[in-house]
């Protein structure tokens, strides 16, 4: 359940954005979670409201975009999905691949509620 620690870090970032932008609160928080990040999107959705309670992120919707694992082949240059994490090039079968996505654990954007001028 390190998702609680991740949610804690996320709420702190949202608090900072709200402060920097002089907003009232956050309505929605968009994050990207890689399939190989070790974080479970469901557990994050569960943890976020608990940590957000009493902060400017309370009641905000957490939108999780799951990033599939993708590899680039260093032999033929093709980029392909790493199906079930079986890390091989889908085009030529080479195992000489590097992960290009799947480890993300990023905050992407925050929808803020601001005072209308």
């Amino acid at each position: 359940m390190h998702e609680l620690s991740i949610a804690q870090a996320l709420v702190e970032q949202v608090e900072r954005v709200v402060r920097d932008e002089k907003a009232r609160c956050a309505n929605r928080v968009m994050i990207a979670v890689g399939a190989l990040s070790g974080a479970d999107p469901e557990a994050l959705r569960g943890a976020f409201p608990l940590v957000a309670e009493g902060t400017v992120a309370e009641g905000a919707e957490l939108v999780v975009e799951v990033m599939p694992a993708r590899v680039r082949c260093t032999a033929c240059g093709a980029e392909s999905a790493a199906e079930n994490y079986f890390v091989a090039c889908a085009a030529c079968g080479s195992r000489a691949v590097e992960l290009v996505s799947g480890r993300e654990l990023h905050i992407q954007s925050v929808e803020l509620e601001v005072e209308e001028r």
Partner: protein
Amino acid sequence: MCKECGCGEETTHEHEYVHTHDGHTHSHRYTHDHGHDHDHDHDHDHAHDVDAAAVRTVSVREKILSKNDEAAERNRAWLKAHGIVAVNLISSPGSGKTYLLERTLEGLRGRVPCAVITGDQRTDNDARRLMGKGAPVKQIETLNACHLDAGQVGGVLEEVAGNGVKLLFIENVGNLVCPSAFDLGEDFKIALLSTTEGEDKPVKYPSLFSAAPVTVLTKMDLVPHLDWNVSACRAALRQVRPGVFIFELSAKTGLGMEAWLDYLAKLVG
């Protein structure tokens, strides 16, 4: 078009945003809306809702664990400045991390100056087991957390590794999932997998085994008593981490220990 009133005014734009926080200045792409007012120079015959709210979206594009990562980079810089190689040992509880470390400290005594930071939710049992083997040992109790974080490690680095240490073992909390998400500032992760755990663990828990360039297969002395296939296990490891460096050993019988100790000695060589 303005989302609030449909007036057709374009308000979202993107530009480079240079700003200062936490004592440093940096810059990143920044997409946001500007509020625009709809004031004009005559009175309406109704009251304005002074509390009206507008909504705008700001692009952040930051790692969620950036605070941890910053602490990890500080640890990494400190370790580098002191010429210390640090490895982050991760495995399930009971796979033999502490026992392997006991034997490793004994084997490297007088050869490589070592130190250990060991993490558990509770107790200093592991630290007590590892003491008296010529290496400074520091226990971190993580309490409710299932992993060590970079801040905790940074808090004890100087105390445990400040005095001529060349090789630092960070024994993480026993857990195959959570610790792999937290960079501690180590040079690399070493996964341990015991023969009693089943050879398909690497494909079941790819977040760790794909991140560890080295995996140690422990309790190899038990293989004759188990339905456990070493080539299936190696294949599972290579599925998630092609090119993984694999050790097979038994800390109990000493099988494979020499190669492991030589490898560690060469790391700091």
